[in-house]
Structures are given as structure tokens and as C-alpha cells.
């Protein structure tokens, strides 16, 4: 009755402070190469890639170091020319050690990039393009690191009508997509040509939040005549960058529970991923670097940097200069990013930002009050769950009831409920745990 879907937006959502002003005017700069590169083989969702080089071997920048192991996997390319120092287990952000490669880059090398087989956008078949995207090691650069070629594959019997390019970047602090849109228009348009051919979509819409109006205006002014492309600006609201929300905001459609965008004839691709496809495929290259926003109150040289994959976090923080009082480092944005426990992990394909907080910003009053049923979480949840009730059920370990009666598994963990809760109840944290438990029960 009172859920009228106005165009241009989705139901509920929140408005955390954006904190983008400090970096959104700073052009993308090349980050220095670190004296050592650490590459875990599990940088994407799916199976880790399989190492095909030996210790001591010399490798060229762009050379394949590890092959894809099946369809749900992508290869790993060398981000530098150098020598393989060691093949050993390396740390990742989750705390798990995974097989990895440690490379010593050659000093003073020109770091020329190897050329591969270019893919002709006008003649390649959809399958050839998907194969090329997989061979380039491309995964979702927005943070999920889902293999892009899998996402682009339109299943038998389904069609893709709309291709949405996600330039929302709703996470506070992050400005990488913003800068990519302002600086890599040609790459984005080229990427869209490949995506259009791969998905056979009829039209393309780039979705951009109103806090990036300059990027929207810039892209709109440059739209090539051969592309059925529109730019659509939507009001700022978190978590609009989530696929479900974006599809609702731009197209007014709803993905059925448990379904994928293709079920409503849509494919969504992040704008930085699109740009990377447009940059790499014409040269047949693999992905070696990505754009990252390094920011937060604890950083002195904030900015948007193009950084080699595998650059150790410790090196990154040393280069940008951080305060002694650093207390929290996040990879990704502050709403959905992961807190770092170990500075020896490295930048991976899915790292969209590094946010550094000092002791001053640390949460001050962690005291949890009882739920007063104020409904703030109900009014925040973008998919209209009842976090208040789910939180109470989680406390009493009623996991099955949460899943069966209160749609727990629809939760995509945006954290809006925890953000607004005046009683500081760790709602999304409960739900994450509950989802894991429910999935295990279903599996067994």
C-alpha cells in the first residue's frame, strides 16, 4: 500500500557521510613498484588458479603465471618483469594462507607489457569475447571479484535486453569509479562495445549517483554515435551500488528472490571492470594493475592510484604515509569492506579501496542496549527484511526460523541495519553468522 516505487530510486536505504571530497578531485596516479610482489592464487570467487612457473624463473610483465582451473576460474598474470623468488603459501585478508607466488621485480626495468592476441570487437563471436575476458584474468573490480565472463554468459533460453554499467560507487570514501569515468571514457566505451557483443543486449545504461554529476555530464557529452547508450543519474543513497538496488533504481524491476539479474533480462557490470575490458582486450593483455582509492583520516597522501596487483599493503601504507595512531585499516569501503589483521597481505584484483582510521575515529560507545523496536532498521533495509525480528531470533539461535519465515538468505549484508541501530545491536554481524550456519545445515 505504501511501497510505491518511485523511479530513480529504491525503497529504504541510508545516507552515511560520503567523505569523498578529499579524493574525488585527485587524478589517478601511478603507484611506485614495490621491491617485492606477493600474488595469492585465490584472488577471485571460484577455484584458485594453478601455478605454471618455477622458482628462480624470470618472467615478463603480463606473462601468465597461473592458469585458470576450469570455468569458474581465471588465470593470473605477472604484474611486473622480474624473477620468481619463491612459490609458497601467502597470507590473505581472510586470515587463510593460500598457495602464492613471490616475485622480485627487476630494478630500473622499463616494465614493458607483453602484447597478446588482440580481439577484434567487430568480428569476434560472443564466445570468443567471453573467452578473451577470462584469459585476461578479469573479475569484478567493484569488490566481489566474481569472474566477469561467468557473469556475462547469458544462459541458454534467456535473453539480455539491458546492459547496466554500474558507476554508482555508493561506498563512502571511495572515488575510484568516479575517477575512472572522468579519465577513461574511451576505455569504458570500448569495453561497452565488447560487452554489447558478448551479451547481445539492446541498450546500455550507465547508472551514476548525483554526487558524480561531473562524470555523468562528461560521459554524456562523449557518447559515440554507434552505441545505444544512455547515462542516468540517480539520487545518492546507500546501498544503491548493489545489483538488486541498481536494477530497481534504473529500470524499476525486481530480481526474484534467489535469482540473478538475467532473470529480469539484465546484466550488470561495474564501470571499472568495463574500462579494464576496453583497455586490455584490444591488446590481448591480462590484468596487472587496478585503480584504488587510498584515503581515510590516517593517511597523509590520500589519492586515487593505479597499483600493481600483488603490491604488499605494508609498502602501500609506507608510501602514502600513515599516522602512528592508526587503529583500523579496511580493504574496500567502510560499509562492506574487511578490516585488515595483517599488513603482509597484498593488493588483489578485488581491492577497490584502502581506508585508514586512527584512534580518534574508532567507535566510542560500543555499549549494546536492548532492542526498543524503534523500526529504524526496518526503514533502512533496502530489501525490506525485518532486521529487528531477525536480530531477536538470532540471539535465541532460531536460525531455521530466520531462513524459512523471515527470508534471512535474501540478506546481502549491506550493513544498513547495524549502521542505524540506536541500540548498537550488531545486526548484520548476527546475520552473516546465521547465514553461514543455515547454509551448512542445508548442505549437510
Amino acid at each position, binding site marked *: *500500500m*505504501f*511501497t510505491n516505487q518511485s523511479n530513480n530510486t529504491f525503497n529504504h536505504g*541510508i545516507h*552515511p*557521510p560520503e567523505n569523498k571530497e578529499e579524493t574525488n578531485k585527485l587524478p589517478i596516479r601511478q603507484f611506485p613498484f614495490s621491491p617485492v610482489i606477493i600474488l595469492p592464487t585465490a584472488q577471485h570467487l571460484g577455484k584458485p588458479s594453478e601455478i605454471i612457473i618455477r622458482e628462480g624463473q624470470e618472467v615478463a610483465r603480463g606473462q601468465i603465471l597461473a592458469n585458470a582451473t576450469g570455468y569458474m576460474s581465471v588465470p593470473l598474470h605477472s604484474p611486473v618483469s622480474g624473477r620468481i623468488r619463491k612459490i609458497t603459501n601467502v597470507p590473505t585478508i581472510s586470515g587463510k594462507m593460500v598457495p602464492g607466488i613471490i616475485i622480485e621485480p627487476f630494478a630500473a626495468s622499463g616494465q614493458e607489457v607483453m602484447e597478446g592476441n588482440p580481439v577484434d570487437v567487430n568480428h569476434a563471436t560472443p564466445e570468443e569475447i567471453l573467452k578473451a575476458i577470462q584469459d585476461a584474468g578479469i573479475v569484478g573490480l567493484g569488490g566481489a571479484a566474481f569472474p566477469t565472463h561467468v557473469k556475462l554468459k547469458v544462459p541458454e533460453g534467456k535473453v539480455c535486453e539491458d546492459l547496466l554499467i554500474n558507476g554508482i560507487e555508493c561506498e*563512502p570514501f571511495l572515488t575510484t569509479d568516479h575517477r575512472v569515468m572522468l579519465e577513461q571514457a574511451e576505455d569504458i566505451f570500448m569495453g561497452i562495445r565488447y560487452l554489447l557483443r558478448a551479451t547481445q543486449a539492446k541498450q546500455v545504461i550507465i547508472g551514476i549517483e548525483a554526487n558524480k554529476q561531473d562524470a555523468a555530464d562528461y560521459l554524456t557529452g562523449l557518447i559515440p554515435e554507434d552505441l545505444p547508450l544512455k547515462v542516468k543519474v540517480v539520487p545518492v543513497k546507500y546501498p544503491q551500488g548493489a545489483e*538488486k538496488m541498481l536494477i*530497481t533504481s534504473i529500470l524499476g524491476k*525486481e*530480481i526474484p*528472490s*534467489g535469482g540473478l539479474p538475467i532473470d529480469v533480462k539484465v546484466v550488470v557490470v561495474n564501470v571499472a571492470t568495463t574500462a579494464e575490458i576496453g583497455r586490455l582486450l584490444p591488446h590481448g593483455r591480462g590484468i596487472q594493475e587496478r585503480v584504488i582509492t587510498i584515503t581515510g583520516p590516517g593517511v597523509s597522501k590520500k589519492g586515487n592510484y593505479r597499483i600493481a596487483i600483488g603490491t604488499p599493503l605494508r609498502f602501500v*601504507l609506507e608510501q602514502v604515509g*600513515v599516522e*602512528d595512531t*592508526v*587503529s*583500523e*585499516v*579496511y580493504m*574496500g569501503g*567502510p*560499509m*562492506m*569492506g*574487511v*578490516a*585488515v*589483521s595483517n*599488513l603482509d597481505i597484498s593488493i588483489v584484483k578485488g581491492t577497490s579501496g584502502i*581506508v585508514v*582510521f586512527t584512534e580518534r575515529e*574508532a567507535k566510542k*560507545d560500543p555499549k549494546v*542496549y*536492548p*532492542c*526498543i*523496536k*524503534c*523500526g529504524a532498521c*526496518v526503514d533502512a533495509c*533496502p*530489501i*525490506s*527484511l*525485518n532486521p529487528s*525480528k531477525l536480530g531477536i531470533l538470532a540471539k535465541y539461535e532460531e536460525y531455521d526460523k530466520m531462513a524459512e519465515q523471515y*527470508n534471512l538468505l*535474501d540478506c546481502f549484508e549491506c550493513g544498513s541495519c*547495524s*549502521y*542505524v541501530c*540506536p*541500540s*548498537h545491536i*550488531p545486526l*548484520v*554481524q548476527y546475520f552473516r553468522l546465521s547465514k553461514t550456519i543455515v547454509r551448512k545445515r542445508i548442505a549437510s
Partner: protein
Amino acid sequence: MIRKLHLATSPHLKDEEQTAHIMRELIYTLLPVLAIAVYYFGFAALWVVMSSVLGALLPEWIWKREGLKDGSAILTGLLLGLTLPPGIALWIAFLGGFVSIVVGKLVWGGLGQNVFNPALVGRAFLQSAFPIAITTWNNPGGWTSLYYPSNLAMPFMQSAHADGLTGATPLSIMKFEGQSSDIMHLFLGSTRGSIGETCGIVLVLIGAYLLYKKLINWRIPLSILLTVLVGSSLFYWMGTGFANPLFTLFSGGLMLGTVFMATDPVTSPLAPRGIWIYGIGIGVLVLLIRYFGGLPEGVMYAILLMNAFTPMINRFVKIRTYGHKK
């Protein structure tokens, strides 16, 4: 360089709103209501409200509960005090506060667990235990009066002399004599009634402020007032001695109850559609009790009854999750 890293799972940002802040803010917004009551009824209003606040704090202190610090007990005591007649014996107000917290909140498991609005539980207790004292309405004595003699009655004794300073409220005059009162008095507050309920205009302004600050859900006052307005207009239009709609809206505890008690988040439904059912229910019950019941006023029982339905409304009125069938 970095000595210690703090670990937590996302989100790493937090809105600054806190439960204790909300309580404090509600307490502050009640102070003007108290001030206007002192203006009309004198310092008796202050003594009564203070007594019920102290009565509400006592059990929190005895059982060392959080309500001492989070402000919820002060809020409950304050709300109860504002629903009492200015001339009530202070010990009764104190006892009411005590019962509000113990029976209205603590026995349920504390803040957030109770089904009924604690202040109204306390008032319902007083209504049944001291039916005379709670329906003895003093004339507004003006801000210079220090107390009513009946304030000082000793426990379990009625004040001996009927002092001739009391009379009927506009609602009982309406109920039993069929006489309406001057609406201006109801707007401004210069009538007999409970300490905090008489000044309609201040309550409307505070309600608007609470809506603006999003401290109360707009659907609750809107649904209640709209129901009462539409319902009373219908009766008035049929024209057999029913009060006019403005009188119905601004007399008795309707405004106070609508703004501060029906809106208690703990005891009202969560889902928007549930809130409409709840608000319309309160409006209908207020009209039924006032027009057809034995009592002149029905706001307290209307809210308590709909509080009782809230868990059921929450169970049956589901929120449609994204991607699920309509």
C-alpha cells in the same frame, strides 16, 4: 609504525543516534509541557511529576537496572506524572511510578520487552486502586500557588475536607451534562484536567517537532487523529448531541496520548501497515469509549488495548521482502 590494529566486521561506520539520546531528547521535549502545567496549576504539577519520577527510579535502583542510566525510567515517570490530576496525593503519584516500572517494564524483562506502555500500566493501576483521587480535578490555581492541600494527604487517608476547589473536566461535562466547552480553553490549557493534557497547542507543536526530528513514527499520530477526526465528524454530522470534532480532538488526553504514549516504539507495531491498523484501532476505541462507554475518557484504555494487539499485528502483518511475491 602501526602498533596495534583494531579488528571488527563491517560496517565500520555508525550512525550517532543512540537509545539513551532518544530517551533524553524525549525527556527534554516533555519539559515545556511541564512548564505550561506549572503556569496553570502552580507548583503542585511539579511536585506530582517529581513524585512519580522518583517512584519510577526507585525499582531501577533497588534491582540495579539499566533504566537508571538510559533515561527510560525518568521518561516513564514523567509521562505518568503528566497524566495525573494536579491535586493528587504525592504518595499516590510515587506509588504509580513504582508500579509503572515494576509491573509495566521489569516483570517483562526490562527495556524493550514489555507489551504495554509502562506509564499507562501505572495509571491504569491508580485508576482502579484510587478511583476517587484520580478523578478529582482541581481548578487551575495559577503559577503562584505552591500546592493543593490534597497533595499532602497521608498514605491510605483521604484528605478530610472537600475544599470546593475541584470540579468536572470538559469531557465529563460533555459526557454527563451534554455541554461542550470553549475550544480556546482547550487549545491554551486553562481547563481542569490531567497535568500535561490540557494545553493542546503546545502538544501539537511538540508533536510536530518530534516528527521533524523523526523521533516518532508519523503514521501513528496521523492514523489516530485522522480516525478520530473522521469518526467524530460523522457523529457530529448525524447530530444527536455528540461533541463537535474539534472538541473531541483537543479534549482529554488524546493529544498527550497520541504524541507521547501511542508512539512508544516498544509497544507499537513495526511494519507500516501494522501501524495503520494500530492507529486506526486506537482512534476507533477512543470514540467508542467516549461516546458509548461508561467513562468520559478512553485514551488510556484505547492505547493499552491496542498495545495488547501489537504482538499479534506484528505476527500477521508481514513486510514484503524484495524479490518475493506481492
